[in-house]
């Protein structure tokens, strides 16, 4: 018995058109689930920093003078934090959140110029923040504060280092989207790709909103 040739299958619809039980795109739900799990991750790091705050036996310390080992000799060290620099970095990170919502606004309306301009601003702001952190860590190292120097340095570098690595991942993600946008591969119907990255970026921002006063301003 012969069978008639099966008709060709229609191409699958774009991912954006998949219906879901919640009415929310699965990728958006997934990024929010990731953000929820990241809240717990940073909560454990912040609580570790707080429970060991003020328990270091040797300097350098964040705000006050202390005795510390520098070049093999016990010396008096100043507080290591440079609040003006970190405040400026915080402001830049806050404004980068503003830049990325404008980029998303442009992407959703098919305004390529707006998308590329504000997205480039976001990437540059993120790069500035990472650069600020690299400078700060190097500066601390030259002041005799290595990772294992005292409880403050270990908890500080772990908390802010993990945040910095998240910012770095965000910068790479947004820079990739910027390249795609320049090539014209983020039309309005694919704006969700940018929205997912923007949500991650805002999360990195809100984590810093908590870390900045907790670590730098609480004495």
């Amino acid at each position, binding site marked *: 018995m012969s069978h008639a040739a099966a008709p060709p299958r229609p191409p699958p619809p774009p991912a954006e058109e998949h219906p879901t039980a919640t*009415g929310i795109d699965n990728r958006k739900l997934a990024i929010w689930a990731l953000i929820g799990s990241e809240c717990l991750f940073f909560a454990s790091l912040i*609580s570790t920093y707080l429970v060991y705050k003020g328990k270091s036996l040797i300097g350098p310390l964040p705000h006050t003078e202390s005795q510390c080992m520098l070049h093999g000799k016990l010396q008096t060290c100043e507080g290591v934090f440079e609040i003006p620099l970190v405040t400026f970095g915080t402001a830049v990170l806050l404004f980068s959140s503003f830049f990325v919502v404008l980029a998303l606004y442009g992407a959703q309306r098919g305004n390529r110029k707006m998308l590329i301009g504000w997205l480039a601003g976001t990437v540059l702001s993120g790069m500035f923040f990472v650069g600020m952190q690299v400078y700060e860590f190097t500066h601390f190292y030259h002041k005799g504060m290595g990772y294992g120097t005292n409880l403050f340095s270990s908890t500080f570098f772990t908390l802010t280092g993990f945040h910095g690595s998240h910012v770095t991942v965000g910068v790479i993600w947004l820079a990739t989207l910027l390249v795609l946008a320049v090539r014209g591969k983020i039309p309005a119907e694919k704006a969700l790709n940018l929205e997912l990255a923007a949500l991650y970026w805002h999360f990195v921002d809100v984590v810093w909103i908590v870390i900045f006063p907790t670590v730098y301003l609480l004495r």
Partner: protein
Amino acid sequence: MDAHTASHAGREPAHPTPGLYLKVAVVLFILTAFEVLTFEAGRGGLGPALRPLFEPIVVLVLVVFSGAKFVLVAMFYMHLKQDPRLLANLFAFPLVIAAVIIAALIVLFRYWRMVGAL
């Protein structure tokens, strides 16, 4: 059409305008400036006369201002004000657990120090 209805219809509700985004950015900047000024006043950096006034309230001001900034970014930039409530719940539930973890660990370590276990 509210956010819940919009989500069931499979459509995203409208997000805010650039004007509102700018207003939020300005408020965030001002709150950060106040945080730093309060810190400086509390440690005597803005003159010794202000120190006794600000020193006792530094922690309270920092908690309130950073909480306000957190809520502003989540509501307006992360669009939780407009997006379906399920997403807000997906964020809020771990946040509550995170706050409980931080509070519990601080209390636990204080207790251990008090009884001399640390």
